[in-house]
């Protein structure tokens, strides 16, 4: 029952995300129902930032399946050399890997099947299960995310619970969030004496 509800919900979210394609960064949605804890509704929204607007609109306009990376990337991702070969670099010109030290593309991506992810060489996974892949290393965060201590909630406080997936906030290639200027600077000490003067 819960799965059906969340499925419908995710479908709605998916539609709404594609509708708002021109609002800033592109968003590709996905759904996950926690396999560990079926009693808790965990719907998630995957939102990988795609900085290139043309890429985003092309995906949205012509190929609703944003996960089919092979459409752009082509075959032939091969180990550590993949980023050094000219033709590979052309395909990944905007990817710079700033994750854990020593990581390569193949730690996560299946070399011969760019549309899939690889769980530390164990098995192939669709992109919709990217969270499981992240959780292999970041098990604490995964635990917190499933429980409710980590991740950005998108619905109200009551059921259902819809939260962003890992890639909804973190760029998998460079997961650290960027610094930026804060907003709404407070006024600590209003200058009353002066204000009363006039």
């Amino acid at each position, binding site marked *: 029952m819960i799965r059906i509800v969340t499925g419908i919900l995710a479908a709605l979210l998916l539609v709404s995300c594609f509708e708002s394609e021109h609002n800033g960064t592109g968003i590709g949605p996905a759904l996950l129902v926690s396999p560990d804890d079926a009693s808790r509704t965990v719907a998630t929204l995957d939102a990988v930032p795609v900085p290139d607007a043309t890429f985003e609109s092309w995906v949205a306009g012509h190929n609703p399946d944003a996960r089919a990376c092979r459409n752009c990337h082509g075959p032939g991702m091969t180990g550590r050399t993949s980023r050094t070969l000219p033709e590979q670099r052309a395909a990944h010109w905007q990817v710079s890997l700033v994750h854990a030290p020593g990581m390569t593309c193949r730690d996560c991506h299946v070399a011969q099947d760019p549309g899939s992810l690889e769980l530390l060489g164990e098995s192939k996974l669709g992109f919709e299960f990217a969270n499981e892949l992240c959780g292999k290393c970041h098990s604490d965060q995964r635990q917190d995310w499933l429980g409710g201590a980590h991740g950005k909630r998108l619905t109200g406080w009551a059921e259902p619970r819809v939260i962003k997936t890992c890639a909804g906030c973190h760029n998998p290639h460079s997961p650290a969030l960027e610094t930026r200027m804060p907003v709404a600077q407070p006024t*600590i*000490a*209003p200058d*009353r*004496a002066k*204000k*009363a*003067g006039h």
Partner: protein
Amino acid sequence: MFSFFKDGIVVATTGGRAYHLWMGALSLVMIVGGYAYSVQFREGLVVTGMTDHVSWGLYISNFTFLVGLAAAAVMIVLPAYVLQDVDFSRAVLVGEGVAVSALVMCLAFVTADMGGPTRLWHMMPGIGYFNFPQSMLTWDVLVLNGYLALNLLIPMYVLYQHYHGRQPRRNLYVPFVFLSVFWAFGIHLVTAFLYAGLTARPYWNTSLLGPRFLASAFAAGPSFIIVSLVMIRRFTEYKIKDETLHKLGLIVTVAAQINLVMLASELFKEFYWPTHHSLSARYLFFGLHGHNALTGWIWTAIGLNVAMTAILTIHPLRRKVKVLVPAATVLFFAIWIEKGMGLVVPGFIPSPLGEIVEYAPTAIELLVSAGILALGLFVFTVLAKVAVAIETGQIGKGPTGEH
């Protein structure tokens, strides 16, 4: 009854040139204060120096000090009425006059501090909601108004009887005198509890606050009465014996000594091992992170306090009226600083979240405060003048039997 009030009004509105000058000056200050208040009423409390960090300032400081002044009247009420101390009985009416005028000022200061003075009826039981007994402020409302009533009724009864040449009936008024004695302790303790009950403000949240309030009040109040008595003695026919002043001087001295002992114990506690809770005291006495608006004031106050207490402690000096009067005056102002601004403002600095925002009163605040003080002096002068006129037989039949 009618002639009692009529004669009273006549006495209050007639007088020499100095009297009219004095009352005229007070009226002028009151008018200016009233105008300043109208500005505050229109614009809001934004015209004061108060902020969300220091949310009480000069008004509540004065209120706190003046509650003490009012409470101190008891120091002569008790011996005069109950112990029938002859020396005090002449001063007691003045003491009660001080209490009444101090209470008038208290109520005016609190009203001036309200954000919504037009909504004060919300506090009235029956048509509003009186959060009693939870809120210490409701206790304060009760005790202040009750004390005001007592201090109006008792002397009014005594004066009324004297006016008609009758001896006031002791069994009629002495029970109220007893009540007012306890009540006086009550008003000042309750006012202290108003602060001491706030765990959010460690500077106030001390069990010593109540006793310290009482000690400083019993130093400042009689000091004021000493000065008033000397004034009355000088400007009217009312005889005040030196002995009365000496007794009052002794009260002032003892209270000032106790106050200093408590100050010392408080300073020891705050600074022997300063904690997080000592930050307000550090701000007050030494400044905090370069903010030190009050350090000059407090050291002045403490310096004067210590010096005057020392002078008053020496018997031959205290017994000279020429020394007693200036010493009492200086002590009065020293306690005003210490207990007014020195108590209220540092409680807010730093804020509970550690932010330091300083406070300085604005011109509007100073003018409103001056206006209220003038109002108090005005009320006191009228009361004292009428009382003296009755007691000296200038109007009515004059007191009989006593002294």
